[in-house]
């Protein structure tokens, strides 16, 4: 198994079982973000700069990756390219075997989990310890570390990691060999560009600065690992890049501000989203993994489109807009089905009714029951309608139906 959990279930079905009451720490983290952001007089300007920087990076991605590779090699590191998670896993296994004996540590990140680095090393007979907890001795002895990273600076080959705790720094510094796995979109052009990201990212996470930020460039004599390997992972990113609207999701810098303000995420937690939680997961996962499976196809609909995420995103990803865009991609892919889905039939019928005054008025006149907006007989042909109605009336009353429509009142009034 390469992928930890491509869920077979639709978001709604998973969410039903994970609904919970958000704790007070949710509100605290939102307050901390608001305070950290309010402190910078040029926050909005910074967000624009972040958006521009990330978009520019994506448009020049091929050149930047080549520049990055050359810089890492110049600094004494090695670069590996992986088309997908399985290839990255094979690379990590091979490098770990070559690194020889001694323990290994993992600094967990979404990518090390995605490629299942722990499983890969276990298969190679190497025990991998997750950093965290009372693992200090293991950290001191480890010969090999596998980590994620936040940014890769093309110009200098510098890798930047933001660390929530002190273990991370030990993983990155003490072992003889360091293998870092990063997505191709994580590159930034220049060291100077970090001036934007080092403000946007920590403050979006509710801090003036993360407790530790570590930056390393290849290998440094007598300081840190003797061997450094950078694994650059595509794994669906170029597929996302090919969609002009969907591509903006690749701006993400991983601050998780969108998670903390999302009313849906706060109630259902990580699990229903599968690989990547929250609003950003709902727009990234379907693009990275495709929308053929029911789980991925359900993710763009896992939002009320309330827009709170877009307001806080430090790189101004218009998440609701991308959600709607991906909904359209799901709908378009289903239009080709030989038998139209009930929803498609319903929406077509509604549009057909709304497309003409007389059809619309006839439907209104028949509106003695819900579903009256649809042409006659549709209720009988579409047994899905009572089902949809049931999903509404399960916990909500229907408004009392009026005696007459607005337009009938208007006509009578003249």
């Amino acid at each position, binding site marked *: 198994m390469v992928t930890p959990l491509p869920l077979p279930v639709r978001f709604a079905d998973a969410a039903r079982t994970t609904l919970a009451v958000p704790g007070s720490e949710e509100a605290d983290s939102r307050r901390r973000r608001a305070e950290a952001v309010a402190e910078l007089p040029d926050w909005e300007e910074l967000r*624009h700069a972040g958006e521009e*920087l990330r978009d*520019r*990076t994506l*448009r*020049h*991605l*091929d*050149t*930047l*990756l*080549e520049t990055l590779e050359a810089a890492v090699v110049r600094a004494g590191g090695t670069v590996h*390219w992986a*088309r997908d998670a399985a*290839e990255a896993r094979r690379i990590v296994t091979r490098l770990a075997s070559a690194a020889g004996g001694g323990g290994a540590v993992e600094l967990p990140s979404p990518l090390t989990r995605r490629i299942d680095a722990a499983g890969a090393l276990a298969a190679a007979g190497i025990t991998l310890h997750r*950093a965290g*907890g*009372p*693992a*200090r001795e293991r*950290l*001191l*002895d480890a010969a090999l570390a596998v980590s994620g990273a936040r940014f890769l600076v093309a*110009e200098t080959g*510098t890798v930047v990691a933001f660390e*929530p*705790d*002190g*273990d*991370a*720094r*030990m993983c990155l*510094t*003490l072992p003889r060999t360091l293998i870092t796995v990063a997505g*191709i979109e994580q590159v930034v*052009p220049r*060291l*100077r*560009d970090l*001036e934007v990201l*080092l*403000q946007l990212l920590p403050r979006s996470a509710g*801090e*003036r*600065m*993360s*407790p*530790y*930020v570590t*930056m*390393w*460039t290849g290998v440094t004599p*007598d*300081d*840190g690992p003797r061997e450094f390997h950078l694994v650059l992972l*595509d794994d669906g990113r*170029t597929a996302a*890049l*090919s969609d*002009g609207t969907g591509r903006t999701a690749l701006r993400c810098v991983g601050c998780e501000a969108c998670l903390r303000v999302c009313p849906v995420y706060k109630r259902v937690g990580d699990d229903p989203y599968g690989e990547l939680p929250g609003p950003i997961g709902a727009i990234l996962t379907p693009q990275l993994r495709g929308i053929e499976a029911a789980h991925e196809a359900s993710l763009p609909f896992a939002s009320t489109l309330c827009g709170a995420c877009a307001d806080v995103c430090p790189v101004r990803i218009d998440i609701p807009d991308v959600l709607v865009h991906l909904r359209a991609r799901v709908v378009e892919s289903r239009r080709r089905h030989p038998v139209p889905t009930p929803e498609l039939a319903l929406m077509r019928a509604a549009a057909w009714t709304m497309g003409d005054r007389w059809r619309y008025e006839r439907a209104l006149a028949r509106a003695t029951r819900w579903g009256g907006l649809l042409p006659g007989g549709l209720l009988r042909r579409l047994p899905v309608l009572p089902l949809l109605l049931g999903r509404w009336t399960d916990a909500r009353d229907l408004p009392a139906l009026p005696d007459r429509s607005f337009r009938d009142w208007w006509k009578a009034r003249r």
Partner: protein
Amino acid sequence: MNAREEILHRVREALGADRGGGFPAPSGRVRRTDGRASGQGELAALFAERAAEHAGGGTAVRHVGADGLGTAVAAALWARGAGRIAVPADLPFGWLAALRGVEALADAPPLEPDELAGVDGTVTGCALAVAETGTVVLDGGGTQGRRALTLVPGYHLCVVRAEQIVATVPEAVGRLAPGRPLTWISGRPADGAGARVLELLIVEE
């Protein structure tokens, strides 16, 4: 096609007409200075205030004059009950001149990890500090030593000269030495095996 060629090919295909080509031009729309704190004394005060406010209990900050540094270092180590410390080999002699009953191990030749794990703390300088975030930045240059030195021991006493403090993150980034291993420390994390105590001495003339 090998993986490298294929990924680069996919990127170019995906971008199509949107592809920039070449190395992108730099952006110019970021604040470089903070109008609020300008003088060195104000910067030192802001830095001390922000460093003391970090989550996880904040960082103890003391202000000392240049002639009081040796005494302040000795007092801080005495307060910690430190008997053995590890220090960069190039630490100025005066910083440790007032130590009594504290064994200072110079990190030359490099101490083994278990030797580092056995000391009570470390004393270093820094490359620069950022006032608005209360951050000290180490780059492995003079008075700082290699990364392991400030990483393994549980206590880190860091000396910041007032003139090393810049106001904002952009100013700090502008002064970074490319290629050096950099560590930005802003308070200490709440947990983890590597959670260390940081204390700061700000040296003002």
